[in-house]
């Protein structure tokens, strides 16, 4: 179970997250929507420990990160949290000096201490499942954007995260590639993964998310099953946003 409650984040005087609470049931996908500046990306960065939270808690698969604990304790829990949460960044951030295979096995070998052979076998399986079986020895610089994204997904999944975060995965994909990404993500959900996906594309979220959460001004405006939020939003702000989108 993934649970966020009362999450607050301030940058100086401005509060970006003003008390966010939601849950994500296992093996489901939560889609997060919202205008730019609504706090979606900050929420994601809090959930993998890249931002320090000011209040509230984040629980993920037995790890509980909360504000107002000692600095050392907080750091320890952030490390634990990061082992439970995998992230696919908007710009992927692949390691350019490592081959595709090297990118995927780097963390399992050096963080989890998986034997290199085992890590490689698993990495090749992951590459096959994202449709890049032949690319293991290539370097990120020679891959297309879509291919890089698949490598980034494989890299995150190689750590067996309880939760996978995807930040704007559709921002630069054409409709055909969007469909194949949606199918790919669904197969991973069927295999037991849980995901949170930030996206502006309602078409994409409609096909992949089980639930959708709409944010504005650092608050959750609406949270419910995908069908209900996208087709009959209760809050006028959600309605307004959806009317202007897509």
């Amino acid at each position, binding site marked *: 179970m993934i649970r966020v409650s009362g999450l607050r984040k301030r940058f100086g005087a401005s509060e970006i997250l003003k008390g966010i609470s939601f849950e994500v049931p296992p093996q489901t996908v939560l889609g997060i929507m919202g205008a730019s500046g609504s706090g979606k990306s900050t929420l994601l960065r809090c959930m*993998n420990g890249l931002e320090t939270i000011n209040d509230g808690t984040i629980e993920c698969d037995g790890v509980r990160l909360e504000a107002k604990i000692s600095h050392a304790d907080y750091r320890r829990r952030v490390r634990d949290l990061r082992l439970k949460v995998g992230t696919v960044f908007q710009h992927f951030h692949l*390691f350019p*000096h490592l081959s595709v295979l090297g990118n995927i096995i780097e*963390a399992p070998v050096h963080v989890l201490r998986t034997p290199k052979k085992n890590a490689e076998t698993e990495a090749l399986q992951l590459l096959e499942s994202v449709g890049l079986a032949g690319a293991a020895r290539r370097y990120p*610089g020679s891959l297309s954007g*879509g291919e890089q994204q698949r490598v980034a997904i494989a890299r995150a999944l190689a750590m067996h995260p309880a939760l996978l975060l995807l930040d704007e995965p559709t921002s630069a994909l054409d409709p055909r590639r969007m469909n194949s990404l949606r199918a790919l993500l669904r197969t991973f959900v069927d295999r037991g993964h849980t995901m949170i996906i930030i996206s502006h594309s309602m078409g994409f979220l409609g096909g992949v998310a089980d639930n959708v959460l709409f944010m504005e001004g650092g608050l959750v405006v609406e949270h419910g099953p995908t069908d209900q939020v996208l087709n009959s939003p209760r809050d006028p702000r959600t309605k307004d946003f959806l009317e202007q989108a897509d």
Partner: protein
Amino acid sequence: MDQHQPTWTYRRLVNAQKLLCALLCCVFCAIAANAQDASRKRPLRWGADPSGGAPYVFTDPANPDRYIGYEKEMVDALAAAMGRTPEFVPSDWETLVSALQRNSFDIIVNGLEPTGDRARQILFSNPYYIFQLQLTVRQDDSRISSLADCKNRVVATLGNTAASRLLQQEGIPFRSYQDPVGAYRDLELKRIDAVLMDVPAEAFYARPNPKLKPAGAPFTRGLYVIGLRKGDDALKAEVDQAIDKIIRDGTLETILKKWGLWNDAQVEFQAPIRAGDQATANVEYTTTNAPFNWGEALWRLTRAAGVTVFIALGSMVIAVLLGLPLAVGQWKGQAWLRALCTIYVEFFRGTPVLVQLLFLYFGLPVIGIAMPGWLTALVGLGLNYAAYESQVYRAALEAIPHGQWEAAYSLGMSPTLAFRRIILPQAFRIALPPMTNDFVSLFKDTSVAFAISVWELATAYRELANASGQFLLLGLAVSAYYLIMSLPMAHLARLLERRLSNRSTERMIEAEPAEVGA
């Protein structure tokens, strides 16, 4: 009145003519006299090395804007005898001959010994002084009592002198110094075992020092002469005549006595001249006549090149090992660490490396740290280049996009692991070209080690070329050595760069968002 008028006018005209003639005469006379005067009073420009040059010619410690010394007084006497005004041109011992040839001055008066290879380049006057050599050791040293005991020791002397040639002939390992001060100081600091020096310098610098003692009596006899340009025979005649005069009238004796340099050798040398016998004037120069040996010169250059490579590699290791912590300290350290690193970097970048080496070599012994010259050069250049390398690394580290850190963190890596496995390898690629650049310039910068008497390539060139006059050929040989050393390095670095860039990482960093979905 009417008649008087023309007469008066005429007379006036005649007078004016006479006056004009007289005036013209005066002008011509004046010009002629001036011309004569000019030739008689043309200054006598003489060159010598005043740095550590006592008692020959050196800066007056009591009056630092003027020079004193027995040769200074002798030149004054010579110039007076020649009816000229002396004009001193401070110069550098090792390059006196080439400076003379370049017309920087007209004569060399600096305890110059007539040697065979100098005789090929310049003219010599008649001798004016008989010098001897004296071996000096530390007061507590009982191992060395003569040159024969020095076969396996390191003896220091001035470069390109009778003493250095003697040591070379005897096959005794020796180190050349720029001035006696440095040689005797290094003897005190046990960097060397003995110093062999002309008696005048030994008498001035070593004898008053209680920590040093002479080993054995002065030995061999050699001549000091004045050096002149080839073809300047008129001046040579003039100088010879003046030397003859100041010996005959006792002026030179007075000067030498005043400086404590009058001894039996001088008495024997001056006696026949004062008796009017010129035979001794054409003295043969024997002990110091060693022909230039190309084979040996190239072998010495090769060894010097080895020293250069050793110093360059050693200091690069220090620079790389120290540069990285400096860079990280300045980049991510706490305020006090950042300040400390910045002070280090600014100090070593803001002061000349030459001054740093001199400080390490001469300054540190004061607090009891006396390193040998090669080690001083290695450490000094290493510390200096560490400052430069740290800036190269810092720029490279800062150039790695922040996303790389975040990606590493989100995979559960600790900051150390992320730095070691993700950031450093990428920064290394960025830093490689400027590092290569620095390493090549470090190779060349080893030449400053010459200031602390390390026998590396530049020192070797200077000494061998000064000894032989073969500036051009030896210069080409030395350049070839530097190129042989630096070109493979540059080539190696290019290969490495190419290998790394085959992974086409740059394309990705540049084209990250744009290529998405292509």
